[in-house]
């Protein structure tokens, strides 16, 4: 009897324990809803998408904004562009008039109301205005953006552009901002932007983090992640330790083989390497001595050693630059990557009147991967007798100073919409020369290919268009406006418990997109 009672007590206790564990288990089974992201940054600079040029800003802008159309999440292929704020669109037979029909009921963040055609007109007009946008040059072909009705917008072009949809995607100037928010918030819009994406800014903690919350009214559905903390951890080692300690779930990586290998070895971690590759070019100001002597520029081009750079960064995360455009861009050709030849470099310097070498100043960023590249290049040029006097500054300062034309040599690493026109216009058209009213990122002051770039933009014959772009690149390469160095792929890592909700092959925002489907397992 006693043993029966004991047994029944034991059984009850076991049952109670099992029930308790089941309850606890079900409580633990609740997936997390707060995502911590570690970014190599001191701080954000400008979150107005029409100004965001740094990787740090672009990543987070990608979570907050929508375009009329969008790249399918995880893809950067123009062939996979799909509806976003616009449900459908059509163009006139001559390709100069495009009409977009908007999705109804799409809400801006923070109760800034519904997206209407007025917002689209305001946003695209702002993107095309050099006083209010850093990408105005891309929109030069826009003649007018008009409201047809509250849910219909018409874009009229002065001339046909190579890819109109590329200008209205969720990328750069194509991101749609709220008219009311821009007018109401003024300069605050740079830090507290208002878009229509799945996440919205709730707080900016200077030099610490940007806090975001799910946009409950997101038109594709309520995001499964409720809060995102975008933490600024500039040091790679500190960021890695934070990841290993479980403080962050998604981490911006170092474009370095040893980093990739180490992260791959961590348990429950996936390393994500994806496009677009950012092409690093060494832009040389052809108007400033001694770089105004083409022999000096040629010497620098011959002193650069791309293979060594690939060995330095690792084959998983980088590949040699083969031209003035990143590989795979429509219209890009392989030109300008001259062979590494130290003797030839020295000879050119002697011919230019620098038998004992020369010193050139440059401003470079503290951003670890870019600084490391520049230190390798510095050593390579040193072998040819060229001393790079590097001033190392914080990343946002670097961006500000190179745009003030303060650095005769600029190492600039970037990715753009994968069509030659965008890249050539921003990097090598004279309208884009830094410190001019229409400045973008022409640091070399080259303008010898303006005619071809302009002609290609309106050329309707695809073959002729390709020829014009090729000619432009050959002219620029001949003038040695820039030296192609390496293409760096994007590299991030995440815990396996974070499910992005799509296959990540590429992201124009240079970081994994967080969508309404992104969640913890």
């Amino acid at each position, binding site marked *: 009897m006693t043993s029966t009672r004991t047994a029944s007590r034991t059984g009850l206790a076991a049952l109670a324990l099992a029930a308790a564990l089941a309850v606890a288990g079900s409580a633990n089974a609740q997936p997390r809803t707060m995502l911590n992201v570690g970014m190599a940054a001191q701080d954000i600079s400008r979150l107005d998408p029409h100004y965001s040029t740094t990787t740090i800003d672009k990543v987070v802008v990608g979570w907050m904004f929508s375009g009329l159309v969008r790249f399918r999440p995880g893809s950067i292929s123009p062939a996979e562009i799909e509806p976003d704020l616009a449900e459908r669109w059509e163009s006139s037979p001559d390709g100069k008039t495009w009409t977009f029909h908007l999705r109804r009921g799409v809400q801006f963040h923070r109760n800034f109301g519904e997206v209407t055609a007025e917002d689209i007109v305001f946003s695209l007009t702002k993107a095309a205005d050099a006083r209010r946008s850093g990408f105005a040059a891309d929109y030069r072909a826009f003649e007018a953006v008009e409201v047809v009705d509250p849910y219909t917008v018409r874009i009229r072009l002065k001339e046909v552009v190579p890819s109109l949809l590329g200008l209205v995607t969720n990328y750069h100037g194509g991101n749609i901002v709220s008219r009311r928010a821009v007018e109401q918030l003024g300069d605050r819009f740079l830090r507290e932007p208002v878009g229509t994406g799945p996440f919205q800014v709730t707080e900016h903690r200077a030099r610490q983090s940007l806090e975001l919350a799910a946009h409950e009214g997101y038109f594709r559905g309520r995001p499964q992640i409720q809060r995102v903390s975008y933490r600024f951890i500039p040091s790679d080692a500190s960021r890695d330790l934070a990841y290993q300690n479980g403080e962050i779930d998604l981490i911006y990586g170092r474009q370095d083989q040893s980093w990739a290998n180490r992260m791959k070895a961590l348990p429950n971690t996936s390393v994500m390497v994806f496009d677009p590759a950012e092409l690093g070019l060494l832009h040389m100001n052809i108007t400033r001595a001694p770089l105004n002597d083409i022999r000096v520029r040629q010497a620098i081009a011959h002193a650069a050693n791309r293979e060594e750079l690939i060995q330095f960064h690792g084959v998983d995360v980088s590949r040699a630059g083969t031209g003035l455009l990143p590989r795979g861009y429509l219209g890009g050709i392989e030109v300008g990557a001259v062979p590494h030849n130290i003797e030839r470099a020295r000879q050119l310097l002697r011919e230019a009147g620098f038998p004992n070498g020369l010193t050139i100043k440059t401003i470079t960023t503290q951003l*670890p991967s870019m600084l490391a590249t520049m230190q*390798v290049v510095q*050593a390579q040029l040193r072998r040819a007798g060229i001393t790079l006097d590097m001033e190392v500054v914080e990343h946002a300062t670097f961006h500000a100073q190179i745009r003030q034309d303060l650095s005769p040599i600029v190492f600039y690493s970037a990715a753009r919409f994968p069509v030659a026109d965008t890249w050539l216009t921003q990097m090598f058209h004279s309208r884009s020369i830094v410190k001019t009213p229409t400045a973008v990122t022409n640091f070399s002051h080259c303008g010898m290919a303006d005619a071809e770039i302009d002609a290609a933009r309106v050329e309707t014959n695809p073959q002729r268009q390709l020829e014009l772009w090729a000619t432009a690149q050959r002219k620029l390469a001949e003038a040695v406006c820039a030296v192609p160095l390496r293409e760096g792929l994007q590299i991030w890592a995440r815990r396996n418990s974070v499910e992005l909700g799509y296959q990540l092959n590429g992201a124009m925002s240079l970081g994994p997109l967080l969508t309404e489907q992104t969640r913890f397992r």
Partner: protein
Amino acid sequence: MSAAPAPTGNGAEAAAIAEDSPAPRRGGLARLVGLFNANWTSWAGLAMLVVIVLMAIFAPLLAPYDPLDQSILNRLKPPSADFLMGTDAFGRDVLSRVLYGARISLIVAIAAIGLAMVAGGTIGLVSGYVGGRFDVAMMQAMDVLMSFPSLILGLVIVALLGPELRNLIVAISLTAVPPFARIARAPTLAVKERAFVEAGRALGFSHARIIFVHILPNVMSEVVVMGTLWLATAVRVEASLSFIGLGVKPPTPTWGGMMRDAFENILDAPWIAIYPGLAILALVFALNLLGDGLRDATDPKLRGE
């Protein structure tokens, strides 16, 4: 240590000066060496310092590789027979960079503290000698400067002037001026009341002559001891500024800069940080031992005077 110069002048005044002058300590150096000897750690500090200075001077002969030469194929190699302290992220030999890095640390420390000794010492001497409102104003200005921690003040100055060797020296020396002014002023206040100074004035000596010929030798020992102690601080501040990216520009090797570069790879290649760290530790330790020994040897209380 303090040995007053033989007063000059003729007749009764000269006799008065001679009577009041601090007795030149016959055998003072020998006694100092004796007191210095009493503490073996002082000699250990001096020996370590001499070794580090010799390493810095003969770095081109001792370094197995060019400290700037990159060898990408040899990057992040652990210590081995080929690379005794391993290689860094750029395949540069850490040993060679540590040896050359000593030069920057020593140059910055010596130049900065030398400047601070001259500037601070002069301010302290003149301020103490002139006295009155001028003294109050100068010392209050020094107090304001002293209220900032050396690193913060150095950081602000380098950030304003730009990260260059010269600016680093200026920044560190500015942070060290106030303590030297203070240390020079205190004995000046006492010495200026002495009869030989009065006599000097009576003989019509210029203020500059009284300050720099008659008072200075009496305050010199304190300033020198202070200088030795502050050399260690200067090494630390230089390393800290380099660590936070405000040091000498790359690729020049500096210990702080090496630690900064190493930080990005500390999980993969800790040796890149360990060796410059040990070098900083050794130099600071040596300077502190030496400074402590000198201070003890010149401290009248410890000498039982």
